[in-house]
């Protein structure tokens, strides 16, 4: 029971990170119907931006307060990662709009290869680690054998930041003109354009929002694990995509729900079965969902028309 509660806590933390990345996949897929393969690598790039900013603040400027440093890191990473993704969309995807479905996918795969190798060349192939932050824990309860169920400050931070940003983001999508434009483009781009919505701009903003949330995930990932390498984009990327598919691609609450489920499955699988096959479990869920529930948990069924 105690192990279960502890794993639940760990799983929700991991799941929040996946959920944040998954929103990027689901939004981009929703609006231009493209699997943005490079999104996992954008997440990895954001973790590196956070790493450099964090080192700059702590070792160069000597900012002592970790909370202040983290807030600045978060803002800088979100801004710069948004700029990166905006540029990627502009350079690699926009010229291909209106051509076949495969062309942007191949372009995105190329971008993904480019990004991970760029970081490898620019920052070296080694793992980059930072000192552990907030390693205090709050012991919730302990069983007689001395097994403590605890929540670390780091985990609370991940939950808090995720919750706040999800709320802000949900507000933007459901309550503002920008969000309305976005949902309109998702339904029918031509009609949206006729009604005076700047479709190109809306798509750009979608990529910017996706990148900003990926940057939050990247910063949290760096703070939580304390280590990042150039190859860290692919597997979280595919798992987040799995989460987006599981929740129902195109559905925002679905992406978060899917992320939490994938995180929980992965952590529980590691705890009760074997760590070796935890990725197999995640990928099997993807395959099984696609086969039996292709529209996902919260997605709309895809109606095929002639």
């Amino acid at each position, binding site marked *: 029971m105690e192990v279960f509660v502890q794993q639940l806590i760990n799983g929700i933390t991991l799941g929040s990170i996946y959920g944040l990345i998954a929103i990027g996949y689901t939004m981009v897929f929703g609006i231009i119907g493209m699997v943005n393969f490079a999104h996992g690598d954008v997440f990895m790039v954001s973790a590196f931006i956070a790493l450099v900013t964090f*080192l700059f603040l702590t070792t160069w400027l000597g900012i002592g307060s970790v909370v202040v440093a983290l807030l600045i890191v978060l803002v800088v990473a979100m801004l710069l990662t948004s700029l990166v993704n905006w540029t990627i969309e502009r350079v690699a995807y926009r010229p291909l709009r209106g051509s076949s479905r495969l062309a942007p996918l191949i372009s995105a795969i*190329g971008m993904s290869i480019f990004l991970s190798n760029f*970081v490898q060349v620019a920052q070296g192939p080694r793992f980059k680690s930072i000192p552990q932050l907030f390693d205090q824990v709050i012991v919730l309860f302990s069983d007689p054998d001395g097994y403590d169920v605890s929540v670390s400050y780091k985990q609370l931070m991940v939950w808090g930041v995720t919750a706040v940003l999800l709320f802000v983001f949900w507000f933007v999508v459901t309550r503002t003109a920008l969000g309305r434009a976005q949902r309109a483009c998702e339904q029918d781009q031509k009609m949206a354009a006729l009604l005076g919505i700047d479709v190109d701009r809306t798509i750009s903003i979608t990529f910017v929002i996706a990148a900003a949330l990926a940057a939050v995930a990247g910063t949290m990932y760096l703070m939580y694990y304390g280590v990042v390498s150039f190859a860290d984009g692919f597997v979280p990327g595919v798992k987040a995509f799995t989460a987006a598919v599981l929740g129902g691609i195109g559905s925002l609450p679905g992406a978060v729900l899917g992320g939490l489920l994938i995180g929980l499955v992965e952590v529980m699988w590691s705890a009760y079965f074997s760590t070796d096959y935890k990725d197999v479990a995640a990928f099997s869920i993807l395959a099984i969902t696609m086969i039996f529930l292709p529209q996902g948990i919260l997605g709309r069924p895809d109606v095929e028309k002639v």
Partner: protein
Amino acid sequence: MEAPHSAVRVDLGRAVREAALAGLIAFGILLPLIGFNTVQNIRNELVLETRWPLLAALVAIVAAGRFLHELVIIPWLARRAMRPRAEHAPPAWRAALARWAPPFALGFAIVYPPLALWLAGFQGAAKWIDNFGVQILIYVMLGWGLNIVVGLAGLLDLGYVAFYAVGAYSYALLAKTFGLSFWLLLPLAGSLAAFWGILLGFPVLRLRGDYLAIVTLAFGEIIRLILINWVPVTNGYAGISGVPRPTFFGIPFNADENGFAARFGLEFSPIYRTIFLYYVILALAFLTAAVTVRLRRLPIGRAWEALREDEIACRSLGINTTSTKLTAFAMGAMFAGFAGSFFAARQGFISPESFTFMESAVIVAMVVLGGMGSLIGVATAAVIMIGGTEIMRELDFLKHVFGKDFDPTQYRMLLFGFAMVLIMIWKPRGLISTREPSAFLERRKTVAAEFVREGRG
């Protein structure tokens, strides 16, 4: 009246503004990743080092590139778009090229090893035949195999490398455990891969387009993870070494008196095996091409192409889409299995490292960049992409330009990804985007690029 070409006005001020903006954006993006380098100091802590000159150089390159783009390329494109489209028929040289390129390429491929021997000598030729010849031909074969699935049947398969792995591991394990020969195991590995193709294809082929792509990706990863974790059989990350090498129809390539060199009265040299392997993979690749060409004329091949164009129309015409897709999947998997067992026999060592998602992505990229369904296009893309990255290994003279620490091989995959994006933007339908119809009324017409539809599965 102005002459039509001068209607494209070159706006210098705009070019400067755009260049400044591009430089600013490049500065923002590159500042953390290039401007600073994270290095470990002696206390094993990460510290930052600055690289301002490099940052300044890259920002300047981006700004200059944007400036030239605005000043030269955009006006050029605009002028080209204004030029009236005079001819509907492609120019004569294109027809001649299309007619003569395939036999010429085949002839070149056949005389390549003697040519390399003649030009580079016994010592130097091994590298050229192995790194360029055999390596490229493996990818040509994989590209042609996947072309059946993606190019003809329009099913986007991102886990193709799984079948390549099945072929390689079947050969390695069966040859090591039971001592069976390469020629016996080649068809067996192909059938096993085809069997896996059917097994994996069966549940997923109801899915369409992108969904199919992602599930095949997942299956590819699952197979790789099983290869990594099923240590008793596959030896995990360490891989299988000492895989038996192929023989010349029973005669081994070694220095013994029963060896190939002694039997044929030649001086022993490892190059004979390399040349033999070259011709084996050449034969396998052309088998793939021949089968593809023949199948396109058979009902099943026409069903594949019809399926690619419109699945609903296919179904309403009474084509069993599931079995049509499955045969394409199995056929593609079989050729990957052949290529895999050849790969294992050539390397003598295999590990899960060789079967990552990147490999699948590279093969898919070759098919799409080459032009879906076009054998010549896929082969061209394979030669450019694999040959290009191999050539990066040879550019030692760049060390004189950029200093001793400069290692061109580091930049292979970086340029590879960049080239993928560029080619896609330049030719979104692939290098060879016209298509010869396999069935026609009265006379053969080339299908123009605009009407060539692509894998929607």
